[in-house]
C-alpha cells in the first residue's frame, strides 16, 4: 500500500512537473509573455513567433499607452517612418488593460531599464477625461475580471505580495498565487480556448467564405468577422451601462486627480526623463454619447484645469475626419483609417500651432 501511494505520488509530481515545464517552455513564451504590449512587435499584423521571442527594448523614443483603440489606430512602423527609421516606437495599447496595469508594467520596465523613457515622448490615450482617474492607492492592482493574466507578467515579487493582500477571499488569494507561480495553471484555460478555436476557425476557413475584416490584429482585438456582430452588441450595451453608471457618480475634484493613476503615470514618466502627452482616440458615435453627458462635460472641465495646472500637453484629434463606417466593430478604427490617423497624429504632434482641445 505504502509503495502504491508513493508511486502514485511520484507519478502525480512527475506529470505536474512535465506539464509545468512544457508550459514554461512553450505556453509562457508563445502566449503568456506574448500578450505583453510593451514587447512591441514590429508590425501590427499577426504577431510572429520571432517577435514573441524578442526581448523588450531597453529604451524607447515614442511610447503609446492606452486601450485596444490605440492598438488599432496607431501604426508604430509608420510612425517611425514619419520620424526616423531607427527610432523605437512601442504601441502598448491593449484591450482590458487597466491604468494600474500600465503603471505596474512601466514601473517594472523602469526598474530593469532606468533609461527606458529618457528623452521619450509618451502618448497617453484619454477617452472622455475619466480613464485612469481612479485613486492610485485603491486601484493600482485592479484588473478586469478573468483578465488577471494581463497584469501578472508585470507584477514584481513585491507587487505580487501586495496584489495577494488586496484579494478579498482565500480562494481569490489562492487563485492569484497559483496564477503567479504556475505557468500551467495560468495558461491552461487559454490553451483550451485556443484549441477549440483552432478547430473552429480551421473548419470555418475551409467550409465558409469569411469576409476578412478591416481590423488590425493587435491588442487583443477580435478580428474574426463572425465576432463583429457580438462586439457591436457589446458596444451598445456597454454604452448604456456607462451612461447609467455616470448617474451614480460624483464630479471629479482636483484633489482626486492629484492622487489618480494618471497623475502617478505623469510623475513616473516625468521623473524618468520622458514627456507625457495626452490625446483622444476618435470614437464611434455610440461611444461619443458617453462623453457628451452633462456629467462627462463637467468632469472634462475639471480635468482640463488639472491638465493646465500640471502643464501637460494635449493633442487635439477632434478635427480628424472619420465616420461610423470606419469602425468595423464599433470599437476600433479600420486598418485603412489607421494610416490616416497615424499621419494626422504625427502632424499635430509636430505642429507648433496645435489648437487647444475643448477640455
Amino acid at each position: 500500500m505504502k509503495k502504491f501511494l508513493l508511486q502514485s505520488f511520484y507519478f502525480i509530481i512527475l506529470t505536474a512537473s512535465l506539464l509545468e515545464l512544457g508550459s514554461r517552455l512553450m505556453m509562457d513564451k508563445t502566449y503568456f509573455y506574448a500578450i505583453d504590449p510593451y514587447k512591441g512587435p514590429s508590425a501590427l499584423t499577426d504577431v510572429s513567433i520571432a517577435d514573441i521571442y524578442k526581448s523588450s527594448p531597453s529604451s524607447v523614443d515614442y511610447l503609446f499607452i492606452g486601450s485596444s483603440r490605440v492598438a488599432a489606430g496607431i501604426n508604430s512602423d509608420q510612425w517611425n517612418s514619419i520620424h526616423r527609421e531607427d527610432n523605437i516606437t512601442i504601441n502598448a495599447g491593449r484591450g482590458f488593460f487597466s491604468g494600474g496595469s500600465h503603471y505596474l508594467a512601466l514601473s517594472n520596465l523602469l526598474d530593469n531599464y532606468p533609461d527606458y523613457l529618457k528623452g521619450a515622448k509618451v502618448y497617453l490615450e484619454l477617452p472622455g477625461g475619466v480613464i485612469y482617474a481612479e485613486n492610485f492607492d485603491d486601484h493600482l492592482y485592479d484588473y478586469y475580471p478573468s483578465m488577471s493574466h494581463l497584469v501578472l507578467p508585470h507584477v514584481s515579487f513585491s507587487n505580487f505580495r501586495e496584489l495577494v493582500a488586496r484579494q478579498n477571499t482565500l480562494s481569490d488569494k489562492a487563485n492569484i498565487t497559483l496564477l503567479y507561480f504556475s505557468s500551467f495553471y495560468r495558461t491552461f484555460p487559454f490553451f483550451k480556448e485556443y484549441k477549440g478555436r483552432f478547430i473552429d476557425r480551421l473548419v470555418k476557413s475551409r467550409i465558409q467564405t469569411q469576409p476578412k475584416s478591416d481590423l488590425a490584429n493587435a491588442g487583443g482585438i477580435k478580428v474574426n468577422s463572425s465576432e463583429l456582430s457580438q462586439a457591436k452588441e457589446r458596444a451598445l450595451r456597454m454604452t448604456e451601462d456607462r451612461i447609467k453608471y455616470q448617474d451614480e457618480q460624483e464630479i471629479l475634484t482636483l484633489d482626486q486627480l492629484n492622487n489618480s493613476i494618471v497623475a502617478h503615470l505623469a510623475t513616473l514618466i516625468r521623473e524618468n526623463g520622458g514627456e507625457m502627452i495626452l490625446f483622444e482616440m476618435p470614437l464611434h458615435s455610440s461611444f461619443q454619447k458617453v462623453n457628451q453627458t452633462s456629467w462627462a462635460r463637467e468632469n472634462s472641465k475639471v480635468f482640463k484645469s488639472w491638465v493646465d495646472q500640471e502643464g501637460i500637453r494635449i493633442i487635439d484629434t477632434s478635427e480628424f475626419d472619420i465616420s461610423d463606417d470606419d469602425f468595423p466593430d464599433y470599437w476600433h478604427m479600420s486598418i485603412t483609417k489607421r494610416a490616416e490617423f497615424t499621419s494626422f497624429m504625427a502632424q499635430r504632434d509636430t505642429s507648433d500651432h496645435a489648437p487647444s482641445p475643448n477640455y
Partner: protein
Amino acid sequence: MLFNSFSFVLFLPIVFLIYWSLPTTRARNVLIILASYIFYGWWDPRFLTLIIISSLADYGIGLLLLNQNSTNKRRILLLCSLFVNLGLLGFFKYYNFFIDSLVEGLLLFDIEANFKTLSIILPVGISFYTFQTLSYTIDVYRKKISPTRDLFSFLAYVSFFPQLVAGPIERAKNLLPQFQREQKFSYALAISGCKLILWGFFKKMVIADNLSPAVEAVFSNYQTLGSAELILGVVFFAFQIYCDFSGYSDIAIGIARLFNITLSKNFNFPYFSRSIGEFWRRWHISLNTWFRDYLYIPLGGSEGGKPKVIRNVFIVFVVSGLWHGANLTFVFWGLLNALFFIPSIILGSNRKHLDTVAENSVVASFQEIIQMISTFGLIAITWIFFRSETWSDGWQYTSRLFQFAPSANLFGLLIYLPYVGLLVIIEWLGRHKDCAIDHKIDNLWLGRIYYAIIAIFVILFASYDEQAFIYFQF
C-alpha cells in the same frame, strides 16, 4: 456522480484511503455500500429507493429459496423476483413506450384510445443493476450458487459503485465471493487498475467527447449533408460509442482493482473483429453472456435445428435492442444485427475467429483487413438506427447515404479523423493486452514518463464539458 467530474476526483481517493484503513471485511463492505449510495444518490436521492427495494427483494428471495425444496414454490419465488425487478424496470423504462405503441397500434385499426403517459424519470443504470440482481436469483434458483446470508456483502455486490450504473454486469458467482473474502491490497492489481483508468479516461474524454460535436452536427443535419459526410458521421459515432462505453468499463474495472476486486472484461477490441459473430463476442461481453445464459440457452440455444436457432437469435437481439432503450430504433438495431448474424449460423461459421486477429504478426493480412472493414461497415449501418431519434430518421439517413449525394462540408469533419486514427493505432498495437497502453518498459523512470505523457495528453486534449456517458441512459 460522473467519473469525469471534479466531485469524483475528490470522492475516489477519500473512499480508497478509508477503505484500506478499515480493519474488517464487514466494515469495508459497509463503506462500499455507503460510498455507492452516495455515488448513486448524487444524481437523485430518490433513485436509492429502487436499488434498495431491488436488493432487499432478491436477498430475501435468495434466502427463501435456500430452504425451499418444492419446485412449484421455488418457481413462485423466482417469479416474485422477476415481477419485482422486471416490474420496476418495465414501469420506469417501458411504461410510456408501451402506452404510446399501444395507442399507435390501435390507430391502425381506427381505434382512438386515450391512455395517458406519465412523466417518469428514468433512473440511471436501472437496466444494469436489475440484470445483475436477477442473475443472482436465477442462479440461486438453478442451484448454481448458494444464497448468501451476509446482507452487507450482498448489498455491496448489487451497488458496487464503479460498475453500478453502466456495468460490467457481474454475476454473483464472480463478484459476491470477492466481498466475502478477507481483502488484502494488491500492488500489482492496483497499478494495472490505474493503467486501465488512464486508458479509460483517454477514450472517454479525448476520443468520445471530442467526436461528440461532429456526430451531433451530422445526425442533426443529415437531410442536408452528402454521402461522404454521412459516412464520416456514422464512423465517428461508432468510435464515439465504443470509446464512451468501453472507456467507462475500463475506468470501472480499474477502480475496482484499487479495492482488490476483479471485474469481468467487457470489451475486447471489437472493431478488430473479422465477422459479426466475433464482434458480438467482443462487444459488451457481460450483457451478451447474460443474454446467452438467461435467455438464449433457456430458449433452446443452438439445439433443435437451424430454424429454431435463427428464431432464438432474433429473440435475443430484439430483447437486447429493447434493453438498450424504449424506442423502435433500438428494436430495429437489434433486428438488423440479427439479420447480419444469421448468415454465419446458416453457414455454420459463427464460431470462427475465436483468436485475436493477426495473432503472430504486426500487420493483418489483406483478407483480414477486408473482413474487418466489412464487419465494421455492417456494424456501422446498425449504429445509424441506434443513434437516430426515430426509426424514420434512421431510414432516411441510410437512404441518403446510399444516394451518393455530393458533400460540401467534408473538410469540417475530416479534421476529427486524427482522433479515430490515433485510437486505432494504439489499440492495434496493444490488441493482445489487457489494456492497450500497457507496454512493458524495463526502466522505471522511462515507464513513469511514458504514462505521464499519456496523462498529459488526456489533460490537454480532453473535452471538459463533463459529458455523461451514453450508456447511462440505458
